[in-house]
């Protein structure tokens, strides 16, 4: 079996990682053997072994999982450690009742009648199944009929066509509505995975207010079951788009709940982050980006979202990484005569103009755009605060507003200097809410808004949209002043949602991982609160000239990296570290300077 003597060295490593307990009793042996046989065939100890080429041997694992859950407490701690992964499906707080099968047979609702995980026990129809469990089953059947019937998605796969597993568990303590988790490949080496769903057992906790009870159940079922569908299409989905789609479909199924609108302000506050920015409540990543799907659905029909997912189904990833969705969306839009860039621009316009054509009675729920800067003193020149410059990553946008004032010109002339891939357009809104679009004059690089300083004008909004796939695209602008601010350093450093001027200059690249750490720190901890935003705005106002000097001198760049080290460490590891470093720095500096200050104090005044 082992022909090469060098393989004997495997023992070297293997002996140090054999958590198996050789003295495990009968139950331990049984479960270890049964679960082992699912993937490999080998001896109890983890020695080099040969295994059959075929992968999964036993297709239906449910009885085995149930048995493992039932006998869990009887197993040795070593065996429990080894088999813990097989209990990924939740072990409920009490004896699990027989799963309740939904009316159409598509779902198996797992619950317990005792402990924290038990659903409300009321049983009005006396069938010995809690009414809430029956409600859960009917809600999931409704979700199934809409998502697979009306919207045409393929049902979430299950092994051997068994009902899909839904578990009721007390999740309020974990601050979760629910979750869906991939389980096993539908066939060996497939990217199509089975999955299971866990949702809160009653949605009664005040944590879910105002979406308690049935509302919480409905939006969670719609959301999680679409994730289950996504696992079936290709579990290597891009997470931001998975959340954007699952959130979008909540309101398509349950139009009156309207929780999804709560995620929009975070997106609009962070519109200078890319459409595919990582999932985050604070930036609106993922959840808040659902509204792009509504735009696509309005323009091409809801089926286009399904086409995107079906396109993903055909793709694979040689290194097992998630497959980016933006190129897929672009591909699908191009086959519809458009492109991601074109639709992203029309989407960002729609956010201001608010000419939504679906869910029209809910347009008021869509938060208005949040400008990155507002000017009311004219002219707006390079030295203005905030700096009249916006740098955007791919598929990001910014609104800048100009309001009439005593210094406003009669006709507002916006002069822009942009990189390729960035598009600018202005809107004039009158006091009656009427909006007029003013395109960019590409030859002159200007947008002229006539009648700006008139009583009927409420504001002018300048939309700067990076419709391209490149990051760090800078647009400089002035108002009522023909001179543009000096161009930035090639767009590699940025403001307003981009990078850090000084850190980028010090580390030499916008993509340096320490710059990334600082950007993440800014996005997560500074841009999420008012004082932090003021600090960032001041930094962006003051730092560009410093960064220019730093970038040109190696010694300054080295010094800057040293000075930034405690900040990066604090952002990356723990704030205690930076306190320690700063303390040491202060002590050392004090020790170094104190004798010199003393001696300088002792010197007689000059001229005496």
């Amino acid at each position: 079996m082992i022909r090469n003597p060098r393989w004997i060295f495997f023992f070297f490593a293997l002996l140090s990682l054999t958590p198996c307990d050789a003295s495990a009793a009968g139950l331990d042996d049984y479960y270890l053997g049964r679960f082992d046989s699912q993937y490999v065939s080998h001896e109890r100890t983890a020695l080099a072994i040969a295994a059959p080429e075929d992968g999964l041997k036993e297709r239906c694992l449910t009885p085995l999982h149930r048995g493992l859950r039932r006998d869990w407490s009887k197993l040795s701690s070593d065996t429990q450690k080894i088999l813990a992964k097989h209990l990924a499906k939740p072990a409920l707080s009490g004896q699990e009742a027989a799963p309740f099968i939904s009316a159409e047979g598509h779902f198996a609702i797992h619950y317990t009648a005792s402990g924290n995980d038990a659903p409300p026990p009321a049983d009005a129809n006396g069938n010995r199944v809690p009414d809430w469990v029956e409600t859960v089953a009917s809600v999931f059947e409704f979700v199934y009929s809409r998502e697979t019937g009306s919207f045409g998605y393929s049902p979430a796969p299950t092994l051997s066509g068994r009902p899909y597993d839904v578990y009721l568990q007390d999740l309020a303590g974990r601050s979760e509505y629910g979750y869906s988790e991939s389980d096993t490949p539908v066939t060996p080496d497939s990217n199509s995975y089975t999955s299971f769903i866990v949702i809160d057992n009653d949605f009664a906790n005040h944590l879910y207010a105002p979406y308690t009870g049935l509302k919480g159940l409905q939006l969670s079922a719609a959301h999680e079951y679409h994730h289950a569908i996504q696992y079936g299409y290709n579990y290597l989905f891009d997470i931001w788009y998975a959340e954007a789609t699952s959130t979008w479909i909540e309101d398509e199924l349950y139009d009156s709940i309207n929780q999804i609108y709560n995620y929009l302000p975070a997106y609009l506050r962070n519109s200078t982050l890319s459409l595919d920015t990582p999932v985050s409540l604070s930036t609106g990543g993922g959840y808040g980006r659902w509204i792009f799907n509504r735009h696509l659905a309005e323009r091409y029909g809801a089926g286009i979202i399904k086409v995107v997912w079906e396109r993903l189904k055909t793709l694979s990833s040689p290194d097992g990484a998630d497959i980016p969705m933006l190129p897929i969306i672009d591909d699908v839009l191009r086959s519809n005569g458009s492109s991601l860039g074109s639709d992203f621009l029309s989407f960002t316009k729609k956010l201001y103009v608010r000419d939504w054509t679906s869910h029209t009675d809910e347009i008021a729920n869509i938060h208005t755009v949040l400008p990155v800067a507002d000017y009311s003193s004219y002219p707006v020149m390079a030295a203005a605060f905030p700096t009249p410059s916006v740098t955007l990553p791919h598929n990001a946008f910014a609104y800048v507003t100009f309001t009439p004032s005593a210094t406003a010109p009669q006709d507002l002339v916006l002069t822009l200097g942009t990189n390729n891939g960035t598009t600018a357009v202005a809107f004039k809104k009158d006091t009656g809410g009427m909006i007029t679009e003013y395109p960019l004059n590409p030859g002159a690089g200007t947008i002229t808004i006539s009648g700006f300083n008139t009583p009927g004008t409420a504001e002018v909004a300048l939309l700067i949209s990076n419709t391209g796939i490149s990051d760090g695209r800078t647009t400089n602008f002035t108002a009522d002043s023909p001179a543009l601010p000096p161009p930035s350093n090639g767009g590699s450093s940025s403001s307003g949602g981009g990078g850090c001027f000084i850190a980028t200059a010090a580390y030499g690249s916008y993509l340096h991982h320490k710059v990334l750490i600082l950007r993440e720190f800014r996005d997560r901890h500074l841009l999420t609160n008012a004082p932090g935003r003021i600090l960032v705005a001041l930094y962006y106002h003051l730092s560009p000239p410093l960064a220019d000097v730093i970038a040109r001198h190696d010694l300054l760049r080295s010094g800057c990296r040293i000075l930034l080290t405690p900040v990066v460490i604090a952002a990356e590891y723990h704030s205690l570290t930076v306190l320690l470093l700063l303390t040491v720095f202060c002590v050392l500096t004090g020790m170094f300077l104190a004798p010199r200050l003393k001696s300088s104090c002792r010197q007689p005044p000059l001229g005496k």
Partner: protein
Amino acid sequence: MVKQTVALFLMAVVLLRPSCGEGSGMQSWKKYFFDGQEFREGALSSGPSVYQRDGYLPMIQTGNEAPREDKLPPGTGGAVVFCHIQSAGGKLQNHGGYIPLAGAAVEIRNGDRMMALRADANGYFVIALPAGEYELRLQGVRRKMRVETGKTTFVTVRTGKRMVD
């Protein structure tokens, strides 16, 4: 004076870097941790760290004690494999991260030879292998792994996702 102050500060930074200087036996070891996406140099306040040193079998430890110094056999390299499920999302609070796959059974293939290993309770295993190309298989997932003599290879195997909302 500025240069001297900067030099002093630099010394302090070097002395206090978290990846070194924690004990006399750890001077040449580097600590790594999994950040949810990849291995990075440094350590988390809790959880296991990977100790790496060229020519030595890597170690997985949760404490700060000096790692055991086991030299790699001639012609072999070290491999650190971490098996996990990715966790993402969170409507009420962020649940981004990962869930280690305790006890995961991983196949390692090299031509017609095959062996299987179990991950520990934290989802890790380490192994010394002859230099060469290998394929890891865990459930439906396959990963290529290149082992170089005297070096340490880091491999993460993500077998699925948990979407939390």
